[in-house]
């Protein structure tokens, strides 16, 4: 049973931040609510004030320019991203990721800002965005700051945001030349979260050598994490199956998964190694042919 709360409906982002400043830890932002309402119903979260930003037009936008990349307002729904022709052209992996995120109903109502702020290590967007070097702009009544997703997640369900801050924008830098990102999760049902997930971005130099690599693991630790050892294996290497294999092994060694009923720790590491190998290779193959 959800515990009683006072419902607040701000008319603008600014007003929302004012409310948040006022109520701090007792207030909770709701947007799509697709994750929040579940835990509220279980009685795990009992905010006194719920600040609804779902309908805020000033946070619902998507823009792209070749210099700054993609900017999405926090209340942009998953479905909007999935259906955007622009996103499909510039960041096809985002569309692929969204198509696999839960079900249409959830994507219709759930938002990108809400998903990232919920900080579930098994969430889909975080690994992909992190792998592409994405960041979030968070705001409070006293100002704004941009936090790289690399630094955003501090612990299970915890972020670097203060109690008076909320995500207002998601930023994805422009895709470099000869670069591609691939994402896959391992799940039992199509609509499930990943038992583990891997996003890989590979950027090649002119000679086909790996100039940069960003490997991000989902649900392989208490937060979404970079697999930096795996990246080291890849960066500077002439890529081939043996290198991908090694990168997979490195990622499996450095991740910190926990066991649950769906997979043991050992099996999770095994899956991380397989998916890392596969995604790095898939990204490499696409990077070779991309402009």
């Amino acid at each position, binding site marked *: 049973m959800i515990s*009683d*709360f006072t419902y607040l409906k701000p008319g603008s982002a600014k007003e929302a931040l004012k409310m948040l400043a006022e109520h701090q830890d007792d207030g909770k932002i*709701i947007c799509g609510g697709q994750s929040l*309402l579940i835990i509220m119903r279980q009685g795990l979260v009992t905010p006194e004030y719920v600040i609804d930003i779902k309908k805020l037009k000033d946070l619902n936008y998507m823009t792209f320019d070749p210099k700054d990349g993609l900017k999405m307002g926090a209340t942009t729904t998953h479905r909007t991203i999935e259906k955007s022709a622009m996103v499909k052209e510039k960041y096809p992996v985002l569309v692929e990721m969204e198509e696999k995120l839960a*079900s*249409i109903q*959830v994507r219709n109502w759930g938002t990108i800002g809400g998903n990232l702020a919920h900080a579930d290590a098994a969430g889909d967007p975080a690994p992909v965005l992190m792998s592409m070097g994405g960041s979030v702009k968070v705001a409070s009544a006293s100002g704004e700051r941009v936090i790289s997703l690399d630094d955003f997640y501090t612990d299970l369900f915890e972020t670097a945001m203060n109690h008076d801050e909320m995500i207002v924008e998601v930023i994805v830098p422009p895709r470099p030349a000869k670069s591609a990102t691939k994402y896959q999760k391992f799940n039992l049902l199509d609509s499930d979260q990943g038992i583990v997930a891997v996003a890989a971005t590979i950027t090649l130099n002119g000679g086909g050598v790996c100039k940069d690599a960003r490997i991000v693991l989902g649900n392989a630790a208490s937060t979404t994490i970079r697999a930096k050892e795996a990246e080291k294996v890849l960066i500077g290497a002439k890529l081939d199956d043996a290198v991908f294999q090694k990168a997979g092994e490195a990622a499996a060694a450095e991740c910190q998964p926990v066991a649950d009923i769906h997979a043991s720790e050992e099996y999770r590491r095994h899956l991380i190694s397989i998916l890392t190998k596969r995604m790095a290779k898939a990204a490499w193959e696409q990077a070779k042919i991309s402009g």
Partner: protein
Amino acid sequence: MEKQLLRLNVNDQNYEIYINPKTLLVEAIRDHIELTGTKRGCDTVSCGACTVVVDDMAVKACSVLAVQAEGTKILTSEGLEVNGKLAPIQKAFLDEGAFQCGFCTSGMLMSSVAFLNETKKPTEKEIRDGIEGNICRCTGYNSIVRAIDSVAKGKYTEDKV
């Protein structure tokens, strides 16, 4: 907690109800407006039995606060049939036997309606992905997929007029 006035538009009908703000949309529809076609089958936004169409989008009514649906147009399974005339998807469900116990059917119909409005010539895979948010324990889904497919292929076009 003080109740507040909420105006909802369901199946083209305006309703005024007094609710606690924590009321979920599915509770508003079932308990306050008393349209019980919309069901609940879980507590974890998993089963889709509560699916309704909000502003042309399929949404799980157990994952939305009723107050968040103010100002939208909501369609439930009761709103599909007009003056005794069944909608194409309802006819297709009958023709294909796309339901058994019927408990998931309202939600399944609403997912189907929203999906068909959005996707004109769907592949089988797209149809299956279109209803993946809805659990049906009885049918094994294939009859539902056939029903959606037959509507998409225009089997009931003459009915649409």
